[in-house]
């Protein structure tokens, strides 16, 4: 019961954060130079003052600030983010079309980074001064010093252009439109590999480093000595006792990184022409398509918030102390 209540509080809080994003969006449109009327007039190739006034009253731009804000919020609640004049589509359907690709990329990269990062961290913690441990440290340094778009381009040059192992761009081969669903998924995974590895490279570094430190700390704890003393094998000590207790900080960090993963996804999507929100964001920014940009900002914040909620749930599953609420 307590658990349900805690989760409900978290969700209510997430909704409040989203509302704050909506208000921020609105304020940004308001203080930015130029408005929708200017955009439309620009598309028409200029308009007289009367036409501009007509457009402004049609879109409610002549109403007081808070009335406009209320209208905007009520529209957003109905998932109406306005109309994209550049793409000639409602913003919501435009985003709905692109969101799955971004979700696939973001969550695959996070999972890949977590799994590989933890494996590397654990192995290097077992022999903290071994050759492998130094290799992991080196890898971690590379991961957070190299610009992710550059890593992507380097992988693209190496593994798509020089050695054509992976496709250069996109998400699925257009010729497979008639093929079976399995073939399509296989092709999507084939396309996903390089972008996911590129995006994961940054976070892999962070997670492996933290997992290593956290493992080393846990391995020095008394209960580990007890576990060894009672004759458990090294494998049981490391993977059953130590790993479970050192996962907490790593999962917490992964949760905090969600917004960075979404940010990185924008760059990675651009490099690999991945048809997600990031490429859409860039297109709409270059086209000065404000409704679309703000819709994307909202949905990307939604992705981060949902990611945070999932992390929270995962932490509760790992650590019973958080679950019962007495820390």
């Amino acid at each position, binding site marked *: 019961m307590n658990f349900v209540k805690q989760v409900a509080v978290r969700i209510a809080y997430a909704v409040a*954060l989203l509302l*704050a*994003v909506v208000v*921020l969006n609105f304020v*940004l*449109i308001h203080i*930015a*130079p130029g408005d929708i009327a200017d955009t439309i007039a620009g598309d028409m190739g200029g308009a007289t003052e009367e036409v501009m006034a007509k457009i402004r009253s049609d879109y409610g731009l002549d109403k007081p600030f808070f009335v406009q804000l209320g209208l905007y919020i009520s529209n957003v609640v109905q998932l109406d983010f306005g109309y994209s004049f550049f793409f000639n589509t409602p913003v919501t359907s435009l985003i709905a079309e692109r969101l799955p690709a971004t979700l696939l990329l973001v969550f695959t990269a996070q999972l890949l980074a977590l799994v590989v990062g933890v494996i590397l961290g654990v192995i290097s913690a077992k022999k903290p001064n071994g050759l492998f441990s130094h290799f992991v440290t080196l890898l971690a*340094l*590379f991961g*957070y*010093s*190299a*610009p*992710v*778009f*550059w890593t992507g*381009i*380097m992988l*693209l*040059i190496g593994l798509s*252009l020089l050695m054509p192992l992976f496709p250069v761009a996109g998400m699925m081969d257009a010729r497979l439109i008639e093929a079976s669903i399995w073939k399509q998924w296989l092709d999507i995974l084939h396309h996903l590999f390089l972008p996911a590895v590129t995006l994961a490279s940054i976070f892999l570094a962070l997670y492996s480093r933290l997992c290593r*430190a956290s493992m*080393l*700390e846990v391995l020095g704890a008394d209960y580990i000595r007890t576990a060894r003393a009672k004759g458990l094998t090294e494998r049981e000590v490391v993977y059953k006792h130590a790993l479970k207790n050192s996962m907490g900080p790593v999962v917490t960090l992964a949760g*905090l990184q969600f*917004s*960075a993963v*979404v*940010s*990185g996804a*924008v*760059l990675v999507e*651009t*490099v690999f022409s991945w048809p997600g929100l990031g490429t859409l*964001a*860039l297109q709409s*920014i*270059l086209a*000065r398509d*404000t409704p679309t*940009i*703000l819709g*994307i*900002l909202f949905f*990307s*914040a939604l992705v*981060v*918030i949902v990611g*945070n909620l999932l992390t929270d749930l995962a932490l509760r599953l790992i650590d019973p102390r958080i679950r019962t609420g007495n820390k």
Partner: protein
Amino acid sequence: MTEMKNDQTPQIIKVAGGKPKHPMHEMFNMFLGNHAATMACLVLSIIVTATLIGPLIYTTDPFEMVWAPFTPPGHDGFILGTDYLGRDLLAGILNGGRVSLTIGLVAAAMSVFIGITVGALAGYYRGFAEEILMRITEFFQVLPTLLFSMVIVALFGATLVVVTIAIGIVSWTAVARITRSEFLRIRELEYVTASRSAGASHFILITKVILPNALPPIIVQAALMVGSAILFEAGLAFLGLSDPNVVSWGQIIGSNRPYILDASYTVTIPGLAIFITVLSISLIGDGLNDALNPKLRQR
């Protein structure tokens, strides 16, 4: 740093030889003992010198088309070759470095300032102020930083000032969290209570009593922030969202990206420049961490 000495009497550590050692001295030695960090300092100073003085010696205009496009490095007297428009890549790297480093430094300084202010106020006053400030911090953590900066740049125009502010305004949350937790810890210590009972004002307590003692982890974070701000700027410039009137490393990569098959070096070289710079800064950050937080060293 010299001001600090007056406020808090430095601990004098007796070493075996009997000669007293100042903590700053010890810190400096520890930093030098970290060879990677010392090397990184050397590399970084070479890069900084090259970008500061380089354009004065090598005066080729990075925007001018000086030779045939896609001249490979080392040919026809062009050390790093030319790009798709026949512009000198070496001139681009030297001039672009100046922009990348400046934006990185200023944006990081800005975010450290915002972060310290928010974190210090939240950690010192606690209660309602803390609640509000930490909610704001969480709000900024939820917004994907790069997208938010892209929106700011899109709405207010791609100039150097807007880009710098757009980076600084989104990246302060980590500093705020660290500062707050340090303040929460230190404000309960005895010397703070002592200063308070001696009549120190809130301002003095925050800036002169607590802040200097909270600085070590903040300095480490600040060093790392410079690196991430450089990466951030490179990302924006790569996407084409930087001031079109100046060269930067990310912008060179972005504009040459369509031609990676013909001339991969136009992308590889500026990327390496970013990589080496940020790597040096990370290593210096690690070295500072070892020197400033000796307790954490036995990891």
